């Protein structure tokens, strides 16, 4: 049986196109120091450090955990690096959580980052392969046909993705840390933006960001030593499946459905739309909101887009289940950290510490990440109340 654990500190950097003022070490350090300050703790209070980032091609630093051990105060402590492609921010948080939930560690620091300005994320993801035609055109090129299939089978109107793109940028405008802050963005502007990978337009895609996110997770008996309200970890789950196999359900992956069912069972959630107050879900391309609304059980199959269009996921429209109040991946995307930002922002909501993008009275929130060819899933549910 897992022991109780809670998030007692959260630290983020400003997300920007390029953080030219810091090295990679300086970037992760900034988030880590912010998390320690938030938790009212110092380096000596930390027993283990768990870090994560996306593929090494992004910065060309292989085994960055070695180089980063000084910056993260790892001398004499266990240090571990997690790697599950784009979901790594989520799975890193879960590995950190399990260190505490196992009873082996009392306080763990977890940090994820990406410094995308050091290379080019699109082509680092789509390198030429031996004996193959080079037709891979980044994550957008991979996901666009899957989105097209969702549009076909759901019969959703063409502008659902446009609505999500506007909604998440309006949310991002409330978040001082967001990379894109576009308070005046309009549907027409999104619709008129360049079609990059039809049906994905420029403004329906995530930006490339530099940034890092960190959390301190503490065991039950030490939670009270940190000054701010904790976010109790109520459920944790990971699932994976192969990228390609005959008959694979790519639009609504089985691994995502299984992962959600597992985390809801742990948290006692039977109807996620009703039981949760908000969710931070990995939506790097706008159409993934309606797709994940279905995959995560917030809407019946084929009807996720109806929630989006009705404003149910919008803070500005007073929706009953706001998604990505921080602005989401569509507003900030330091890839390796993007999943952890979802987990941390869910925790900020239930701590009542989300500032201008706070959902009033949020008590229970979902953090979600996915990665690879939508084949790695990581989720947690955090709550204001101790279970």
């Amino acid at each position: 049986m897992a022991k109780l654990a809670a998030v007692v500190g959260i630290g983020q950097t400003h997300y920007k196109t390029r953080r030219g003022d810091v090295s990679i070490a300086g970037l992760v350090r900034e988030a880590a120091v912010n998390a320690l300050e938030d938790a009212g703790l110092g380096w000596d209070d930390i027993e283990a450090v768990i870090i994560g980032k996306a593929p090494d091609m992004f910065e060309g630093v292989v085994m960055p955990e070695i180089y980063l051990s000084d910056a993260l105060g790892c001398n004499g402590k266990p240090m571990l690096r997690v790697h599950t492609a784009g979901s790594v921010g989520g799975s890193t948080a879960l590995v950190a959580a399990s260190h505490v939930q196992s009873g082996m560690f009392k306080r763990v620091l977890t940090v994820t980052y990406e410094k995308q300005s050091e290379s080019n994320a699109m082509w680092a993801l789509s390198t030429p392969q031996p004996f193959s035609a080079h037709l891979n055109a980044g994550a957008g090129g991979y996901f666009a046909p899957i989105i097209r299939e969702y549009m076909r089978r759901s019969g959703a109107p063409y502008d659902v993705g446009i609505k999500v793109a506007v909604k998440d940028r309006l949310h991002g405008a409330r978040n001082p840390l967001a990379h894109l802050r576009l308070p005046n963005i309009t549907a027409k502007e999104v619709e008129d933006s360049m079609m990059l990978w039809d049906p994905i337009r420029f403004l329906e895609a995530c930006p490339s960001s530099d940034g890092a996110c960190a959390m301190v997770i503490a065991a039950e008996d030490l939670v009270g030593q940190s000054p701010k309200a904790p976010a109790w970890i109520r459920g944790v789950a990971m699932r994976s499946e192969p990228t390609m196999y005959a008959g694979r359900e790519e639009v609504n992956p089985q691994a995502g459905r299984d992962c959600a069912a597992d985390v809801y069972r742990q948290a006692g959630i039977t109807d996620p739309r009703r039981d949760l107050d908000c969710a931070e879900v990995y939506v790097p391309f706008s159409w993934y909101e309606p797709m994940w609304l279905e995959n995560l059980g917030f809407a019946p199959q084929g009807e996720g887009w109806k929630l989006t269009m009705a404003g149910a996921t919008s803070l500005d429209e007073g929706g009953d289940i706001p998604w990505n109040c921080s602005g989401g991946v569509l507003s900030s995307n330091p890839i390796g950290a993007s999943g952890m930002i979802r987990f941390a922002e869910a925790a900020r909501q239930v701590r009542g510490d989300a500032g201008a993008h706070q959902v009033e009275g949020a008590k229970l929130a979902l953090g979600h990440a996915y990665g690879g060819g939508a084949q790695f899933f990581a989720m947690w549910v955090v709550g204001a109340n101790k279970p």
Partner: protein
Amino acid sequence: MVQPDVLSQPFELGFTYTRSTGPVVGRFLTGLRQRRIFGVRASDGRVIVPPAEYDPHTAAALDDFVEVGQEGEIVSWCWVAQPRAAHPMQRPFAWAMIRLDGADIPMIHCIAAASPDELATGARVRAVWADEPRGFITDIRCFELVGKAGASPAPATGEDAGELEPVDRIETPIYLHYHFTAGSAPARFLTRIKQGVLTGQRCPRCANVYIPPRGSCPACGVPTQEEVVLPDKATVQSFTVVAIPIPNNPIKPPFVVANLVLDGANISFIHLMSECENADVHIGQRVQAVWKPADEWTYAMDNIRYFKPIDEPDVPVDKIGKLPITGLEG
């Protein structure tokens, strides 16, 4: 069964990274450009060169910079008798840990010497500077033994940086070269496609046909061996119209990259579509391969230039990926 050729191909994976140095490493590199060497004082008073951003013991941020000497002593060394292309010298040399005067922690650099017999722990060495330092570790071209014949004149130090901005960004080209050898299943596929034949493999458990084959079924986790020759007609499972040029690829955007399932196969692969209006491409559309001339065929999917629409009725969505080898009418 056709015996496959052994297929190996050189492969480069690389990128020229644009690295932000941060203030500490930036200070070191800015110093090098002035032919000066800076270290940083750690929490225990020791001087670390090159400077570390954070104290290795206390994790404190370090910023107490200390200029150290241009001479020092060899702590340990390793003779490289046969330099490789990436090495800083193309004649025999030594990698060495050198403790510069005023520093406590040795730094690694190379030493130019006539033979390993000249080297010893405790031997004195001196930095040799590049003619035009630019703010990179190679501004120190190498170290050489103090007092050896042919030694460079003592370098000028403390030059004014003049109008130059501090170094805060460097380019680091990192290019890795591999020989990629195709496994037996891909090699079989490529050997046959060189003959203009598309060959998949059937899973003995679920009976699904994979092309290109991988030698195992990812769903069942069992090896696949039975070969299945497939026609060059396919169905569009989905597609995207790409508006971005692919580096080093002559194809001009916008172009259609489609997920295509060959008749008789149960998995899609991506390929180009052409000889059609992009706006007319649709899910369920029937297409056929347009091959290069046979004398250009090689071990590559590129033997098929692209797929073009053919005059056959669309495949119902629930049948895509499930057609027999004989196609829709089969």
